[in-house]
């Protein structure tokens, strides 16, 4: 499977540290389908800023703790 985005994320880890939250639970709280949460987690889809902020809000952490973008190499 290809990864069309360089954005990585810690959603799987955050779900684990938040009471083993299921993908379905996260999807319901954010208002997307479970398949979309899976795609985001696997780096197959970059969500809109709005959804990204909603995910961060569910975990109660800043956006940068959920999504990461590699720094430019000098």
């Amino acid at each position, binding site marked *: *499977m290809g*990864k069309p985005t360089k954005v990585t994320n810690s959603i799987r880890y955050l779900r684990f540290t938040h009471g083993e939250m299921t993908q379905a639970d996260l999807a319901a709280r954010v208002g997307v389908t479970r398949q*979309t949460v899976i795609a985001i987690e696997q780096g197959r889809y970059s969500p809109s800023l709005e*959804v990204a902020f909603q995910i961060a809000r569910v975990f109660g952490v800043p956006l940068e703790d959920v999504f990461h973008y590699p720094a430019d190499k000098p």
Partner: protein
Amino acid sequence: MSYEERRTWIYAAIAAMVPAVYAVIMLGRLADAGAAEISYAQPLLVAIGAGMVANFLAGMLIGAPDRRDERDVGIFRHGTQAGYFVLAAGAAGVLALTLAEAAHFWIANALYLAFILDALVSSAVKIVAYRRGF
């Protein structure tokens, strides 16, 4: 698999199967007579109607749609845009056939083919986007 992806697979399958049956019937008739003499209007309309009814029934059979989110909307647009270019190219071909005063049989069927290719290409692009990322 989400509802929207299932729906796309079904749409693609119908877009492949119904025209295939129609093509077999038309090729059989073409073997016996020239394009100008073939009775194609009724089978063509039946094929178009059958495709629409099959899509409607399949949509009912796979159940009520669940949530459609921004990814579904984005993938739908992405696929539709790809299909648009195919349809536009097909329309140009139909225009060329018309200007060349080709038989109505070829003009009508070229237009039908353009719509079918639009459906197949847009579905394929959507499925790839669902499977490989978008």
